């Protein structure tokens, strides 16, 4: 699945990284614990979280994640958006719950 397709499936809004939406994702990782993400998320995955502070961008960049999706109507703080813009990270938001977001992505794999 590409990020473009993912955006449609989970009814997401693109906050940053419009130019990178043709990226094919390698999977999805769901967690709000940063050390868990750091230790287990894989390159190219999309990360679902409700953590909105600037440190999530550093984690995504460090692991070469394809995008961060802020679920359940949460959204990145201004500082988070600024850092993502400077460093080239893709940020998406969705009003769907984390469960619904993960469920739709699970059903739409490939």
């Amino acid at each position, binding site marked *: 699945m590409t990020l473009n397709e993912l955006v449609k499936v989970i009814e997401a809004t693109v906050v940053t990284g419009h130019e990178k939406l043709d990226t094919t994702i390698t999977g999805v990782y769901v967690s709000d614990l*940063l*050390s868990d993400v750091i*230790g287990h998320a894989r390159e190219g995955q999309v990360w679902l979280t409700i953590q909105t502070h600037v*440190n999530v961008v550093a984690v995504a960049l*460090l692991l070469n994640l394809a995008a961060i999706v802020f679920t359940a109507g949460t959204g990145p703080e201004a500082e988070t958006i600024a850092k993502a813009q400077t460093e080239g990270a893709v940020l998406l938001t969705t009003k769907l719950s984390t469960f619904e977001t993960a469920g739709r992505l699970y059903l739409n794999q490939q």
Partner: protein
Amino acid sequence: MTEPHVRLEIPVEGNNFTAAGEAASRVKKTLQKLGIDSTLIRRVAIATYEAEMNIVIHADAGKIVLQVDADGITVLAEDRGKGIPDLEKAMTAGFSTASDRVRAMGFGAGMGLPNIKKCTDYLAIDTEVNIGTKVVMKFNYPAAT
């Protein structure tokens, strides 16, 4: 391959969550420029990030020092701070003394030191209460095939 020799020293401020992650990011970028194996870079980046966050969360101030040479890669994380009274306990997965504020940010899961242990080929922690902590992490190059 001619082995690169690089030394990079990056200061880390305690409690500065805005700059947190910068040191690990610079270490990663430096290793990428040197053409180091990407799986190895991932391990170094993860361990460095966790060590850097431990300075930000638990110490007053410190530094990350990257050294790349013929034998391998060494990352030193050294700080002035409260130190670790019981290192064995601190190494246990899930043990954390992080504040509620820090936990609400998704830190303080007590997985940092276990993550570091998993990612390193050699780990030595030297710590003294009310003085500070020194974490030496070494990484070998992948065996040539």
